[in-house]
């Protein structure tokens, strides 16, 4: 029997990577000021905060109802409008269907810029344009959704079977029809799951946006926190946690049915 040639283990390569990781972590820890002794000594502060947050003040629950709905509304508007706008952005940035190199290049960069700027930036921008409030939040989340979905979706479109678009062209279809019948049907299930993923993210984000005055639960959270009402703060966090988990379950169920 001929023994197969065993490839030489790449000790130097993996050793080098491990060393680099350790060195970088140590360097970062020094920069951030990670101080284990200090952490242990001050653990009481964190403990006090946790004790004061418990039990959550359930009596406050009714007053969360309206802001909670507002949070959902902000997230929903952002997801739906952003989700629709993301389709053309994604299509133009996907190589097999993009009409030409220039459009592809410009759209790619547009997507990158959109994604690099954080949702808080967009919230501030729209707040100065339309004033602080839920509308600014919804607009910020719309842009955020376009950024998230277009990136994922264009990558899905890049991976389609390009034989089908050829068949649509052979039948005399134009570019839009080639995209509509040759490309998109192959990726609708992925699109649906990206849309629901974006909605989950948006419910979470709308909390953060609330902190800068964009309405919803985040605004209540900020006011209660600045009044040191930790039992109420913990209740709000609990409500968001339950909502996000519920949305995750729901979108998971829908995605399974779509697959």
């Amino acid at each position, binding site marked *: 029997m001929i023994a197969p040639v065993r490839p030489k283990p790449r000790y130097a390569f993996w050793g080098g990577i491990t060393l680099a990781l350790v060195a970088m972590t140590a360097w970062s820890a020094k920069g951030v000021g990670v101080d284990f002794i200090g952490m242990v000594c001050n653990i009481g502060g964190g403990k006090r905060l946790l004790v004061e947050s418990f039990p959550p003040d359930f009596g406050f629950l009714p007053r969360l109802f309206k802001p909670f709905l507002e949070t959902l509304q902000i997230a929903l508007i952002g997801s739906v409008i952003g989700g629709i706008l993301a389709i053309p952005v994604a299509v133009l940035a996907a190589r097999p269907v993009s009409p030409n190199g220039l459009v592809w290049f410009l759209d790619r960069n547009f997507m990158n810029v959109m994604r690099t700027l954080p949702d808080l930036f967009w919230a501030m921008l729209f707040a100065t344009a339309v004033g602080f409030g839920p509308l600014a939040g919804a607009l910020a989340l719309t842009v955020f959704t376009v950024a998230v979905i277009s990136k994922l979706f264009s990558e899905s479109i890049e991976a389609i079977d390009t034989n089908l678009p050829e*068949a649509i062209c052979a039948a*005399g279809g134009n570019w839009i029809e080639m995209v509509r019948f040759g490309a998109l*049907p*192959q990726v609708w299930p992925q699109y649906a799951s990206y849309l629901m993923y974006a909605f989950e993210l948006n419910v979470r984000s709308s909390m953060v946006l609330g902190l800068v005055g964009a309405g919803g639960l985040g605004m209540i959270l900020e006011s209660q926190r600045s009044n040191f009402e930790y039992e109420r703060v913990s209740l709000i966090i609990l409500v968001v946690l339950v909502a996000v988990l519920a949305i995750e379950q729901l979108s998971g169920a829908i995605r399974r049915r779509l697959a």
Partner: protein
Amino acid sequence: MSQSNTSVPAIRYRGAGVTYAGGVKALKGIDLDIPAGQFVVIVGSSGAGKSTLMRSVNGLIPLTEGTLEIAGQPMPDKPGRALRRLRADIGMVFQDFRLVKRLSVLDNVLIGRLAHVPTWRTITGLWPKAEVEIALEALERVGIVDKAYVKASQLSGGQQQRVGIARALAQRPKIILADEPVASLDPVTSHQVMQDLLRINRELGITTIVNLHFLDLARRYGQRIIGLRHGEMVYDGSGETVTDDQFREIYGRPPGDDDFLGGVA
């Protein structure tokens, strides 16, 4: 039934060739007239240029040398409206069917009507009634109109290929191109599909070109056989008279078992 206008061939190549980027010559020196209404089978081993020749007819692969005329009209040399209008008259059937699997059979056949309906209607699915009638009629002709509202992915291979043929038929084409239409099918279904294509050719007088690699199928169905080898035409004659020696010439080797589909008619 040949169409009356025999002076202008449906397809005319003069000195045609295709050189791919990278220098590979897929086709060279093709001089070929295909009269309207003919049923032509192209044979040759893989890489001989069958697919390239076929795809040059509807401009999916443009010629790099020579000329091509479709019904006397020169091939448009760049993509655009003229090329789409030409493609509208040429139906294509593929080895792998190329159906939109998530859509219904009817929606797939309606794709054959894209060139005749405003885009806002096609992309929203608001097809005019007359177009739906044409699609149903095409399905009727291949005998699966009862599957019109079934999802394409739920059909067998043979049924999917019939949908592919119906889609081509819905174009009301002057030419049908069938690229290895039976290569993914079992022998019995293969014969059925070939007979469908032949019947459509006879009934409607549609010029039909079929790429095949099975010699017995080529011999049986080819009113005319064109043999390609290394991108050149090495045989042009009737299917009934082609000999094993001539097949050897086309394939560059004696025919073996793999070159015959076998099975029943």
